[in-house]
């Protein structure tokens, strides 16, 4: 190992570099989508988007806007230059579908990224800043309530210098510094469930605490969960049929429960329960959830998570289950 003089060398890349005063908000956001080992990270002038997909039926994205960072610098011209270099040997149809050339995409090990960011969190299994451990609490993404509480106040510098290089993190807490390098991979064609390509037929915004209650009632022995939205009562119903019976959670369109409601077409769709449950952590952190269903029955949950800089979003899109007696052609014919 080469000798290191003085303090750890700061990473010196030119393409992307951002500073975080506290890693916690980023860690919390990433944990909401950490059910897969690898994530695609897209860097653009407005921030970072981390995406994971599972079984080609679920795509989850966490949006970390530039405002969440203390400093955020992204060299668009350099990105375009690298992009053009990459494209030079390829046919036009190989280029990323619809992605502007000023965007940088890279695949990296998400679980390792989170492990690195939480290096100074204290004994494994606990969270050192006294804040509740994320999953079932309504923890906000502010730093721990007590301003005098310096525990868990890891600062980070994140940097990336383009395709073929490592994703770098420099973490610091109370004088101890860690330098982490994560291997990056060339992204494969992304799975895009194309939610926005079809009109949204149903949409509502519900306070997340109601949705959390519904999730707790879902029968885990059921393969699927059914979501029914209609313009008449009951406006919104979530149900499961399991080994011991069925559960129904219904919500009417009142101000107390639904912040907004729009239904163009009464529809009921089924989704795989085990996939739906992957958004529990995002749900736990959010204040409100926007639920949308499009003409093809695809479901979008947009979780609004309070952060120091306004609201941050985590999106989950689910493909509907096609019922046994309905072919895919029939399902798309519903359009």
């Amino acid at each position: 190992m080469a000798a290191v003089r003085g303090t750890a060398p700061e990473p010196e890349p030119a393409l992307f570099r951002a500073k975080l005063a506290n890693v916690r908000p980023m860690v919390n956001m990433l944990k909401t989508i950490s059910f897969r080992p690898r994530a695609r990270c897209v860097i653009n002038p407005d921030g970072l988007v981390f995406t994971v997909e599972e079984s080609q039926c679920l795509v989850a994205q966490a949006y970390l806007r530039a405002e969440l960072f203390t400093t955020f610098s992204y060299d668009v011209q350099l990105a375009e230059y690298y992009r053009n270099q990459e494209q030079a040997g390829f046919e036009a149809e190989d280029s990323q579908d619809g992605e502007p050339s000023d965007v940088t995409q890279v695949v990296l090990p998400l679980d390792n990224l989170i492990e690195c960011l939480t290096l100074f969190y204290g004994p494994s299994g606990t969270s050192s800043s006294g804040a509740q451990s994320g999953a079932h609490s309504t923890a906000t993404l502010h730093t721990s309530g007590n301003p005098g509480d310096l525990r868990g106040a890891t600062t980070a510098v994140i940097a990336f210098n383009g395709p073929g290089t490592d994703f770098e993190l420099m973490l610091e807490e109370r004088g101890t510094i860690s330098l982490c390098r994560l291997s990056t991979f060339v992204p494969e064609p992304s799975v895009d469930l194309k939610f926005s390509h079809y009109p949204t037929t149903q949409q509502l915004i519900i306070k997340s605490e109601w949705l959390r209650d519904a999730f707790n009632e879902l029968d885990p022995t059921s393969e699927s969960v059914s979501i029914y939205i209609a313009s008449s009562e009951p406006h919104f119903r979530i149900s499961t049929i399991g080994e011991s019976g069925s559960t129904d959670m219904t919500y009417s369109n009142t101000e107390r429960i639904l912040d907004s409601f729009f239904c163009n077409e009464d529809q009921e769709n089924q989704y795989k329960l085990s996939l739906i449950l992957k958004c529990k952590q995002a749900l736990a952190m959010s204040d409100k959830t926007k639920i949308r269903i499009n003409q093809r029955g695809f479901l979008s949950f947009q979780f609004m998570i309070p952060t120091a800089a306004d609201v941050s979003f985590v999106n989950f899109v689910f493909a509907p289950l096609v019922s046994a007696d309905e072919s895919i052609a029939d399902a798309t014919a519903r359009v």
Partner: protein
Amino acid sequence: MRFRTLVTNSNLLLRVVQSIDKLSKSAMLKLTPTKLHIIVVTDLDSGLQLWSDIAVDALFSEYQIESVHNNEIYLEFNIDNLQRALRSTQGGALGVTLKLTKKQGLPVLSLTIRSQSASGREISLCQDVPVRMLTPQQMSQIREPMVPDGNVHFMMPPLNNVRSIAERMKGMGERVAVSANREGEMNVRVANDLVDITTYFRGLETLAYDTTQEHTADREASEFYTAVVDMKHFVKFLQSYHVAPKNIVCCIVEGYAVMFYVYIGSAGYSGAAALNDTACGSLTYFIPVRQV
């Protein structure tokens, strides 16, 4: 063969046994007229080893030991058993006696604890820890590893910090590179195909042992010495102390081992000053370089 003593500092004895609990299931005890040695050898070739010596005066009084082999006694015991027996001594015992005896034909270390019940009557609790006697020949085969002079010695940063960081780095690799220089800087590094992490500790107190050695001329003070050891062994050592003593010295013998010296002295001293207070004893942890 005879061994019998009053235990005046059962708390210290308990703490020492607790600190070796994570290392192995069993340990060896060598008792001499002046010292008590606890030895843990996990694997003669590649394992972590612990060698300790504690002055008998720091733990006992009215110490009686007799044997045909220079009045030394050697035995092997189960660490958890002895630990549990010693825990009974906590909480205000009037007197604690330790002796080697036979129960049902088998050798045991017998701990007798006299204390006072709530009603004022004296109660006596006896805890027997089965032991396996070792012959002088068996004992002579266990030898402290021959270690070349250390390249660099320094005081460890607070152990809790190093432990929690190392525990999180643990999953990333089986080997960890521990490096240090003579300017109070220590680096801990782990790497695998996907991730490479180096943690830098600064502002550590270096120790001046090395200035008398000849080899100090061959490297700048800022250059690092490295030993790559098994991550599990490194973490096991770090987990040995719930309440970490402030006086742990780390020594790197490049390409050979990482050693840790824990000095048992009176409380109150920390840093290099504690090293002068060697009245009671020391524990030496030896973590050999891991062969690939």
